């Protein structure tokens, strides 16, 4: 992969072509020459860290941070260069040379630099760098910190390949790369069997999704004869039947479900919290899990031409949205509650992406703000765990606000952002999605009401469970474990290396939404990719929607305040209602999977193993045995006596002559 980078660096600037402007514009692409470094730097660093081994233990983590930061600097340079171009010429294809040349199938490897990919690149490198810094302190005591940073860098590189790819196949490379990095990092502490199992679960669930992407690739190649974005997306209007496009769309959705933990492939995300907290923040909150949203938005022309697939996308998003929110209400593990919330928030994004042109930009908008506030909250959770001896049970927290002021304040910024209190970031992005969901669809008036209500209801539930989380952790009475329970806890604020990234992310949680929303800045920025979308009036006036939503949010907060801040929170979880009990075990998702997939699968495997042993091995052994018997027979013929050798030759000759003469006559 690195050779690819150096190759690209050595190519003349002529390889940069604008999709929208004549060749003369390519001259201005000069500064974009550095773009391949985006992927190259973290990849190189990962290779160095993995190959240098223990020798790099002392400085390895700083190399990791440096690589990520350098990648961000490169991203910033490219971003500025892109801003200087006119809006129409902001889609730039960077060719890295021929990748595959196999008869009818030809594919160039290349990067597509456009506002959509740059948005992701900036998010990944910026948040990634902050989390790298955070992890330097968080992983301080881990003997394998270097390896951890190698994997983090590998992840950053793979994620950048994913978003910068100019074809579905190269995207798939990144897609698998982030899957691998995710697997390695979830199972980072794999001496703990449970964590290793969690990693495996994530991997398997992701494989199912990957299968969708592979099938989609196959259909694309069969239909369009190519898998690059240019051909496929331009072929979407006209040259393919709606049925084909729907099939591609559904397969892409399956892929998105696997990677973004959407229903019905969501079960792995909660277990994935087994990984170190910076991993949860970077991969399982801010970036990788949003790859599914990216995939759908990137494939917008395909989905626009396949309304059925779009409807399924919206339904999946809506189900996951509620599913995650309900599960989030019952979880006592702070990281798992956050994971449920991630799932739910990505449900928002998927739903928005399924709404078509009215929703694409807002899906990405919410993705960006969510990347900031959710990463911030995960880092906050990590900071709490750091101060509380790796305790994750919120029933053992309480009243931490006084002891961890910075964590408390930054977490509060994230909390207010996610529940959508103006003017925090989440308000702008989530409100837009709710508005878009209420926009009427021609021929299906029920859709606006159903999906609109779900998004609004979910906003209320979100407010409840996030407030529950916040109050149980920072407010109310202390319920820390004491000497009697094992070890006494002495909460303390985390070191500066950890708090500063949290502060930066909190700033984003507070102001980013307002900044990007003012004047429609963000939507306009994405227009070269997603096209201009006319403003549509929702079924209710916008101010009504906003007020209703805020009312529901406040209601949720108040209920949470009364139950978890004011009143006593039991250390031992109460039995609870049937719904609570169901939500605690992820609404029986694992049991359903076990019954529907795991057990039949195991039965099938067992029978296959049995068939393999008896039928196939039996045949093989039988053939082997009879061959050896035959060999023994041949061996007896080899007596060692010249006379018998000569006789056998003569006999053979006579037989051959007879055969030849018989055939001839």
């Amino acid at each position, binding site marked *: 992969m690195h050779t690819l980078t150096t190759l690209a660096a050595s190519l003349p600037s002529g390889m940069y072509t604008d999709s929208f402007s004549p060749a003369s514009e390519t001259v201005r692409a000069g500064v974009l020459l550095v773009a391949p470094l985006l992927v190259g730097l973290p990849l190189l660093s990962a290779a160095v860290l993995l190959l240098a081994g223990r020798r790099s233990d002392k400085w390895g983590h700083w190399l990791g941070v440096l690589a990520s930061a350098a990648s961000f600097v490169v991203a910033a340079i490219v971003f500025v260069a892109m801003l200087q171009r006119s809006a129409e010429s902001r889609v730039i294809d960077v060719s890295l040379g021929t990748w595959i040349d196999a008869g009818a199938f030809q594919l160039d490897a290349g990067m597509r630099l456009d506002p959509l990919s740059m948005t992701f690149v900036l998010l990944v490198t910026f948040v990634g760098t902050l989390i790298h810094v955070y992890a330097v302190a968080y992983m301080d005591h881990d003997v394998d910190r270097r390896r951890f940073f190698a994997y983090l860098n590998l992840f950053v590189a793979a994620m950048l390949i994913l978003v910068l790819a100019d074809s579905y196949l190269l995207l798939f490379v990144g897609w698998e790369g982030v899957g691998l990095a995710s697997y390695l990092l979830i199972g980072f502490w794999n001496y703990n069997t449970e964590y290793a199992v969690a990693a495996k679960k994530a991997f398997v669930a992701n494989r199912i999704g990957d299968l969708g992407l592979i099938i989609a690739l196959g259909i694309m190649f069969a239909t369009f004869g190519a898998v690059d974005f240019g051909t496929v997306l331009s072929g979407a209007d006209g040259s393919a039947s709606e049925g084909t496009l729907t099939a591609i769309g559904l397969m892409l959705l399956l892929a998105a479900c696997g990677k973004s933990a959407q229903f019905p492939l969501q079960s792995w995300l909660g277990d994935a919290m087994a990984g170190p907290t910076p991993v949860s923040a970077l991969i399982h909150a801010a970036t990788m899990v949003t790859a599914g949203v990216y995939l759908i938005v990137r494939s917008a022309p395909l989905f626009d031409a396949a309304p059925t697939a779009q409807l399924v996308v919206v339904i999946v998003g809506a189900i996951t949205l509620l599913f995650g929110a309900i599960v989030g209400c019952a979880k006592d593990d702070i990281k798992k509650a956050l994971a449920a919330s991630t799932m739910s928030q990505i449900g928002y994004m998927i739903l928005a992406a399924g709404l078509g042109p009215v929703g694409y930009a807002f899906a990405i908008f919410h993705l960006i703000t969510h990347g900031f506030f959710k990463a911030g909250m995960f880092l906050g959770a990590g900071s709490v765990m750091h101060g509380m001896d790796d305790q994750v049970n919120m029933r053992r927290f309480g009243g931490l606000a006084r002891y961890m002021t910075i964590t408390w304040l930054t977490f509060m910024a994230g909390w207010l952002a996610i529940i959508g209190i103006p003017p925090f970031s989440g308000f702008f992005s989530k409100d837009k999605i709710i508005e878009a969901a209420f926009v009427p669809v021609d021929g299906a008036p029920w859709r606006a009401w159903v999906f609109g209500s779900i998004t609004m209801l979910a906003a209320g539930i979100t407010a409840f469970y996030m407030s529950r989380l916040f109050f149980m952790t920072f407010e109310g009475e202390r319920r820390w474990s004491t000497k009697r329970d094992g070890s006494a806890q002495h909460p303390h604020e985390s070191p500066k290396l950890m708090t500063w990234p949290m502060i930066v992310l909190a700033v984003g949680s507070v102001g980013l939404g307002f900044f990007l929303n003012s004047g429609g800045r963000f939507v306009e920025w994405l227009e070269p990719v997603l096209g201009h979308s006319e403003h549509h009036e929702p079924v209710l006036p916008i101010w009504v929607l906003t007020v209703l939503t805020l009312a529901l949010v406040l209601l949720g907060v108040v209920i949470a305040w009364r139950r978890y801040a004011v009143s006593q929170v039991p250390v031992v979880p109460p039995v609870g209602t049937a719904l609570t009990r169901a939500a605690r075990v992820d609404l029986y998702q694992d049991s359903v999977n076990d019954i529907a997939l795991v057990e039949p699968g195991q039965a099938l495997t067992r029978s296959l193993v049995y068939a393999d042993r008896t039928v196939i091995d039996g045949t093989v052994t039988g053939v082997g045995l009879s*061959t050896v018997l*035959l*060999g023994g027979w041949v061996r007896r013929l080899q*007596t*060692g006596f010249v006379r*018998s050798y000569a006789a*056998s*030759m003569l006999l053979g*000759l006579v037989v051959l002559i007879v055969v030849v003469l018989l055939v*001839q006559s």
Partner: protein
Amino acid sequence: MTEFVAPTVDWAALSPVVIVLLAAVVGVLVEAFVPARARRTVQLTLAVAALAGAVIAVAALWSGVEETGGTVVLGGSLLVDGPTLVLQATIALLALVSLLIIADRTETGEDAFAPNAAAVPGSDYEELARRKGVQQTEIYPLVLFATGGMLIFPATGDLLTLFVALEVLSLPLYLLTGMARRRRLLSQEASMKYFLLGAFSSALLLFGIALVYGYSGSLRFSEISEATQVPGGLDSLLLVGSVLILSGLLFKVGAVPFHTWTPDVYQGAPTPITGFMAACTKAAAFGALLRIVYTMLPGLAWDLGVLLWTVAILTMVVGTVAALVQTDMKRVLGYSSIAHAGFILTGIIALNEAGIVAVLFYLLVYGAATVGAFGIVWLVRERAGGADSPILGEATHLSQWAGLGRTNPLLALTFGLFLLSFAGIPLTAGFAGKFSVFSAAVEGGAWPLALIGVLASSVAVFFYVRIIVLMFFTEPAGAQDEGAAPSSLAPSAEGFALGGDSTVAVEAEPVVQARSTVSTTVVGTEGFAVVAIAVCALVTIVLGVFPSPVLDLIASVATFLA
């Protein structure tokens, strides 16, 4: 006025053969006139120069042949065309590499040959010769004579020259087979068997030649071919004659049912000679077979097809199956060479140009792996007891190879490479070779043969991989022998009790081996063998990864001169 016209002989076209045979004659003179001290150096230099010269001569002839398609030399007795040159280059190169192994000596100055082949095994005279460090440098001219015969063999244009070439290449080999330094009785027995059976097959060949001459009135391939086109009343004369000629050639390549000598001779001959014989004789004999089938007997393709099919199937199956139950390394390789003869036959049966290319290529890659593999077998020795005890003969029993991968990883890896090439695993030259012969066979309509070939190859993988497993994943036999009672059977003696299918009863050094425990070691040498093995390994890898340049090169000249 008529002037005397001297018969024109195109000496240039003959140069590869002439150089080698001339050097062989000079080698005989060297034996007579050069003092004993300097003989080995002079002989080795002469032989290497001759073989290298032959390669250069082939290269010099190449472009001319590529343009004209070939020359008829000596009034049609020899045909210097593309396949001839490819085979001559292959034979000369493989002989050169083999020669390095033949010439090599261990640290203690022992080569692979008896100090005095005329001495009775075990006699005082032999012991005296051994102690005085006598060495038989006649080996070099003998190898050169054999090589000279091999260079002529695939180039012959008539049956008489074919027979002469066969004898020129065979007689030195009979002699060389009987000259092993260790296990001399086994070696002499092998030599005797080889000679008797070889004489028998020569007689069959000669009889066949007589019958075919009786039918066609000519010894020239081209004229015989013309005669077969014309319907005559003596078809059975022609057919029986052809079968006899083919059987003489099939004997040389070791095809079933004319293979019986192969394992015994391969086992008994001095190992470097086995490598030389296996690689070069096979190349020469298959070359001749290819020419006869393609230029002399194409009219009989249908009638003789059944013979070739039967022989090819039997050869693949018997070679593979018998190799499974061997316990002696040299016999395993012997049977494996029989199986490979079967694979090559499928390429001949293809009867198309792809078949010619595939066979020629296969002979090169098989030869390289064979010379290398036998070179390694020569290096793996028995040692009586501890580290300082004397080095004995080759450790050929399979059990003695256990754990070699731990003690000598590089050597074992290289041997593994050759085995994988024999097995036809991708990225080794053997795969490219097998792929080309089987695809040629399929193209020529002989897909059932290709199918059997693939099946036989997959069975053969078993015993090749078994050796690899033995080398890398099994405890060394020495570890088990340590502390064993002195009376316990040493592995090599045990090898003879159980091993192989030979009835050879006498062992030259049974006393030494039974006295104490025997360990396996890799002997240090002057280094020639290591160079040769490295070259073979390199060829095996390079032709495995990039076979197409060589295949293209061969394809550019793969047409027989009519």
